[in-house]
């Protein structure tokens, strides 16, 4: 299906090689996962599968890529429209039509499919992806999971032999992500479509992958999942657990791991009786009966809670459950329609802008929205001036989060994780009592996530309050001491992380699922417990 033959590529003369002498072959009807650290060239590799790289991106291309017998260098992306379906990272930016049904037919109209066949295929695809009840909807009114399924459907109507997806679940809550991945697995198994998908959160896709394409440096290696995971630097928790417990062959899914884990559960029984310690901290944020609505859409519906400094709190819930609104209310950027919130005794919305950023600093979902200078050094010195701090304070924060970054670099040229750390440094420089992050793990690989978790834990230890809204259950399980779960604008669960996530099939991390009923959340905890025993 796909053949790479001695492929090398670089974005223009002088820039380093993205790939050097890469060769592999992918057979029909396989589900291949592309893994690699942020900025390693996953999107570039996916772009090569329909000629967007190099035809639209530019760059120096060597060797030969053939997809379905067609050479990428001799054909334009549009010539692949009948063969390759592409779903981009943020489908909102790829929608051409405003109504779902029109979006689905777009590719067929371009290919000149006759009307009867179009009608039939639209109905087929709507049924396949269970989209028939949103066929007349405006694409902007869809939920995240529906939007992603519409984008997949729009690529499928041309009956492609290959489907390419770039991080299809990175913006989705766990349930919507399951829904999208379920669709992918069905496409491979029932229709025999070849699927190539890139993904950071391997724990989700690994169970259904036939092969793993690992990018490291400028080389690419195609392996079966077991071999790839045996020596992978980026591995999901269940694989880390198998390595720690020494299971051979490695367990790739929760089900396989659970079968191997009987002995391990027995060893760890002591953990079950360990009482959960509550530090009993004094509340610093008090929210009472918060309500907020946009038009006729209810975002917050009577939310009350108390949060203490010195611990990291996680905020979870599906897309559109009011997490972002709640964070904005806490940061004083949005005044609630009803109810009140006090941060260290003051209402954040009533504070002057300068005082507000000392009370609560919010890192928004897109951290680049906070950055607008042309270099890291300039960004840091602007932040120093804004907060009337001695020169160099922000840069020192940045270095503590992310050492070894060129200060002259443009913020846009940083990797996703580095940019997030810069935004975090800009916010932290004003020494806010609370640091609040909205969906910080989007697009971060395991290493960057570990790095971020360490930085946040360090902030909490220094007496700051930290609140993180996230869909990433593994990240929350590893970092947060307490979790709030929002649904339809109401708090449906509030308590220690261990109790809240272990009780939920959707929010439970892999380790908890493997070792249930033991309340263990991370591989690190297992390692500590084993060490204590020996």
């Amino acid at each position, binding site marked *: 299906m796909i053949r790479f033959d001695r492929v090398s590529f670089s974005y223009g003369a002088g820039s380093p090689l993205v790939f050097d002498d890469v060769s592999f072959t992918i057979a029909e009807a396989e589900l291949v996962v592309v893994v690699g650290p942020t900025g390693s060239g996953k999107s570039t590799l996916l772009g090569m599968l*329909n000629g*967007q790289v190099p035809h*639209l991106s530019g760059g120096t291309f060597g060797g030969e890529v053939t997809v379905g017998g067609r050479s990428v260098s001799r054909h334009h*992306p*549009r*010539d692949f*429209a*009948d063969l390759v379906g*592409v779903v*981009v990272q*943020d489908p909102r*930016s*790829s929608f*051409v*039509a*405003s*109504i779902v*049904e*029109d979006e689905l*037919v777009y*590719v*067929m*109209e*371009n*290919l*000149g*499919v006759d*009307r009867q066949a*179009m*009608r039939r295929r*639209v109905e087929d695809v709507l049924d396949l992806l269970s989209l028939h*009840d*949103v066929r*007349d*909807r*405006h694409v902007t*009114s869809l*939920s995240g*999971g*529906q939007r992603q399924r519409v984008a997949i459907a729009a690529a499928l109507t041309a009956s492609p032999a290959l489907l390419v997806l770039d991080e299809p679940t990175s913006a989705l809550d766990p349930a*919507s992500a399951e*829904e999208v991945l379920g669709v992918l697995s069905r496409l491979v198994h029932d229709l025999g479509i070849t699927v190539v998908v890139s993904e950071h959160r391997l724990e989700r896709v690994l169970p259904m992958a036939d092969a793993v394409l690992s990018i490291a440096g400028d080389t690419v290696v195609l392996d079966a999942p077991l071999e790839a995971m045996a020596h992978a630097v980026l591995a999901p928790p269940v694989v880390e657990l198998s390595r720690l417990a020494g299971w051979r062959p490695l367990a790739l899914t929760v089900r396989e791991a659970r079968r191997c884990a009987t002995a391990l559960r027995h060893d760890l029984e002591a953990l079950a009786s360990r009482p959960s310690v509550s530090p009993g901290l004094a509340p610093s944020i008090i929210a009472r009966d918060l309500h907020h609505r946009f*038009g006729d*859409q209810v975002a917050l519906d009577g939310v009350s809670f108390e949060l203490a400094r010195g611990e990291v709190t996680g905020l979870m819930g*599906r*897309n559109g459950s009011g997490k972002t609104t709640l964070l*904005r209310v806490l940061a004083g950027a949005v005044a609630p329609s009803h109810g009140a919130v006090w941060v260290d005794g003051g209402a954040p919305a009533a504070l002057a*802008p300068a005082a507000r*950023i000392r009370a609560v600093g*919010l890192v*928004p979902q*897109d951290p680049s*929205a*906070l950055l*607008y200078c042309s270099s890291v050094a300039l960004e840091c010195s602007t*932040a120093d001036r*804004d907060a009337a701090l001695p020169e160099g304070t922000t840069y020192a924060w940045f270095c503590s989060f992310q050492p070894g970054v060129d200060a002259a670099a443009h913020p846009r040229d940083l990797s996703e994780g580095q940019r997030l750390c810069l935004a975090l440094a*800009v*916010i932290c420089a*004003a020494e806010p009592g609370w640091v609040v992050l909205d969906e910080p793990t989007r697009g971060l690989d395991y290493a960057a996530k570990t790095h971020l978790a360490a930085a946040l834990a360090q902030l909490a230890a220094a007496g700051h309050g930290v609140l993180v809204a996230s869909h990433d259950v593994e990240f929350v399980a590893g970092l947060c001491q307490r979790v709030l779960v929002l649904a339809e604008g109401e708090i449906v669960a509030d308590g220690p992380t261990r109790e809240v996530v272990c009780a939920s099939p959707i929010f439970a991390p892999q380790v908890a699922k493997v070792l249930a009923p033991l309340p263990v959340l991370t591989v690190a905890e297992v390692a500590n417990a084993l060490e204590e025993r020996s």
Partner: protein
Amino acid sequence: MRRRVPRGVHPVAWWVWALVLAMCCDAITNPLVLALMIAGLGAVAVGRRATAAPNHAYVRSVRLGLLLVAIRVLYGVVFGQRTPGTVLLPLPQLGLPNWFEGISIGGPVTLELVLHSCYAGLRLATILICFGAAAELASPARLQATMPAALYELGVTMAIALSFAPELLEAARELRLARALRGRPTTGLRGARGVVVPVLEGAVARSMTLAGSMEARGFGLARTASARERRWSLLQSCAGVSCTVIACFSLLGGALPELVAIVVLCVGVGCVVVALRGYGRRATRTRYRKDPVGWPEVVVGFAAGVTAAGVALQAHLDPAGIAGPSGLELPVAPPLLVVLLAGFVLLALTPPPPLRSEGRRPTAGRVVHA
């Protein structure tokens, strides 16, 4: 009467109808007639709009119309020709040099002046609402889908450009919020500089993604024409457009004898049609929806004709009926009102729009989780 099968009326029919009504409104300042017009447009828009994805264009255009009336009244108060009568506000008049002949700033504001400005503003508002109703009945996207194959790509470009403006506003709002989080100014020149550049940057990035996605889905796939065919089509369209432009100028300005100008116009239009058909034959695109043309479209056309004839007749027989009152007297109710009403009632003959999705009207804006 046989039960009418629900179906949408051809978008071009609605837009032509709205255009005719808008042209009629241009001659009318009688507030009674204009009010009936707005009410009738609203009734048709609500009764015959596509039930899938309502876009609330009518309500938006009414709001915008009210703003337009307010602006027109303000303009009248500041720059309007002073009319004697009941003084509401004795504003001082600004002395202007002689060469500012015909323009006055300030002066006493009379009730007559305000009313007159109101009528003029209402006329502009009604013209706007005509298009609002048309957009509610058949969205510009649907209209674009009916374009001839040769203009298809132009149509797509326009549709995307139209959807782009609201997204830019949304991006700017998000960004201002983020700036506020950093304690930065969000207003004034400094604030604007910090917002405009990243918003435009984001817009360019988004356009590149969209272009990539369109290309990946076969945009621009067309049977390739030979160089000779392409040259010939280009020549035809250039000649056609030049002839049409020249003929239009002469018809308006009188550079050529009228008969010659009309002949040139016909030749020009003919060339353009032939060129478009040539392009269309080469395009391999197919259409998913084909809006049928039948008696409902004839009914809509007839209704437009009735309205236009009524206005023309009223203007010919009794021009006072369509003009707003000049003084404080109440506007008269001309016989035209009956004709207008008939024009709107005729549209009840058109079939109702199809009700899809179990008859449930999707809620716009509210994100429903799957």
